[in-house]
């Protein structure tokens, strides 16, 4: 199987504090994977090393056969690896339309097709009616979707989603799960999703990787993981 994204012995330490150690991880095209683990397990740092926001202390990251370790963020994003941040990072003073437009501008879409592309993306993320609204007036859940929409507009191939359902209601969480499933199937995207919400992860029916203290504890399907003693121990003390 041609590996879409591969991380080899990925390690990150900050002046003695080891955030990630020897992570070996891979994901194929059109696949989704969830990353879970208690706070401080190194989930965000791991994803940051893929997106280029952190430079690994050791190890390498390969995307579509190319070594992207240590490349600047914008170069990695240009290649199709785009990230959604933990706190929604959007353009709050601009309209919804303009936000998506910026994503589309970042893609290779020709100028005359841009408008159509923006409308199409708005439809995907169910924000068509709010096209002219200033983002500041959107709900938290809508902002998350907006950000995902931006990544879509950019024709991302690998989505790195950091807690996409944080702050969402149960209903919004469910819709988000559906959205991601739909996008993955229709557009053959891959996604690495950091999440805490058990229901979301269960509904997604995707392989799960558990991180603990910077290392991979175990990998498997949701059912396999959910029953494991170690996983529950690792989450002890976490308010869920």
């Amino acid at each position, binding site marked *: 199987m041609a590996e879409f994204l591969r991380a080899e012995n990925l390690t990150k330490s900050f002046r003695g504090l080891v955030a990630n150690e020897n992570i070996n991880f891979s994901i194929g095209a059109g696949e989704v994977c969830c990353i879970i683990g208690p706070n401080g397990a190194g989930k965000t740092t791991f994803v940051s090393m893929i997106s280029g926001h952190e430079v690994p202390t050791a190890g390498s990251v390969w995307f579509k056969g190319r070594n992207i370790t240590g490349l600047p963020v914008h170069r990695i*994003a240009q290649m199709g690896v785009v990230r959604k941040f933990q706190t929604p990072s959007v353009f709050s003073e601009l309209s919804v339309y303009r936000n998506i437009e910026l994503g589309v501008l970042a893609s290779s879409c020709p100028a005359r097709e841009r408008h159509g592309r923006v409308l199409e993306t708005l439809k995907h993320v169910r924000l068509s009616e709010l096209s*002219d609204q200033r983002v500041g007036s959107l709900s938290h859940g809508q902002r998350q979707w907006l950000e995902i929409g931006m990544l879509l507009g950019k024709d991302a191939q690998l989505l790195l989603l950091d807690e996409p359902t944080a702050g969402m209601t149960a209903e919004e969480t469910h819709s988000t799960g559906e959205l991601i499933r739909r996008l993955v199937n229709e557009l053959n995207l891959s996604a690495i999703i950091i999440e805490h919400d058990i229901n979301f992860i269960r509904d997604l029916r995707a392989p799960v990787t558990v991180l603990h203290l910077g290392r991979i504890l175990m990998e498997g399907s949701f059912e396999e993981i959910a029953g494991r003693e170690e996983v529950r121990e690792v989450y002890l003390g976490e308010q869920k």
Partner: protein
Amino acid sequence: MSALQSTTALQTARRLGVSESGLAIVALVGFALLPIFVSGYTIYILPQYMLYGVMAMSLALLWGYSGILSIGQAGFFAIGGYIIGLSFKWIDFGNPAYIAFVVAPCVGAALAGVLGYFLFRAGVRAAYFVLVTLAVSIIVEQVAVSQSQWTGGWNGMYVPRMSLTLGTGTEISLFDDGPIYYFVLVVVVAIYILLRWLVTSKFGKVLLGIRENEDRVISLGFDASLYKTAAFMMSGALATLAGALYGTHAGFVSPSLGGVLFSTEVVVWVAIGGRNSFLGALLATIVVASLSNYLSAIAPRYWQLVIGVVFIVVIIHFRGGIAGALGRSGAFGKHKRGQDG
């Protein structure tokens, strides 16, 4: 009417029947017809204020649209002035003014490009960038003073009025105030239209994105430092070009043209007129510069003081300048709340 053509504030404005474009046309007609009703000093001095206005617009591009503050635009302006002065002094073939109009923006862009390359690539803080632009202004002034064999030092440099040479060998002298008034007006309008167009292009939209959320723009795949450098180069080129035209119009260039005080005044004009609005920057400049000229004749010592106080007040209270304040009530311009750059 799709969201394509406007920001939300402009849409609100359109609903209220006021738009920047409409106002711009009114202003243009006004300026075009002015010489019919007025003559003498006003026609002489107005083009100079308009060229200050171009400098202000260049700052609006940089500050308003890209979120990069510079207190060194006057440095570029002075460089342009000295270039055209030297051009007339040293070049005796062709049209020295034309040559200056080509050389000046190139020099301005080159200077801005070098600075931008070093600073933006290194990811220096916006504050450091401001400092460097301040230093540019200081250095330009100091160099102008010290290289007096070329620049005339504190005594300044005289620049003749240019003429337009058209291909067929005809030469139109712009020595009289009337013809040069229109020439400047045409140039200023052209630059205004260029800038308005620029901000609706992909380049302009990305700049806006950089101002709003640079990290997000980078994470979408844009090389933000490249865009910022390009914006700085454009703004530098425009300011330098304006300075060159100013040089031949005013007929005199001196080191204080590039100094820190003048650079700061530009920021004041833009802050008052609204840094998101080119028309606001242009008109505010003309109004404030006229006022300043008038008042400094009456109370010279107090006018600069007033400028300083107004500056502080504007920074504290208005975020979008007057155009921004109007934007809150629905006219053109964009009012920004929250974090800024």
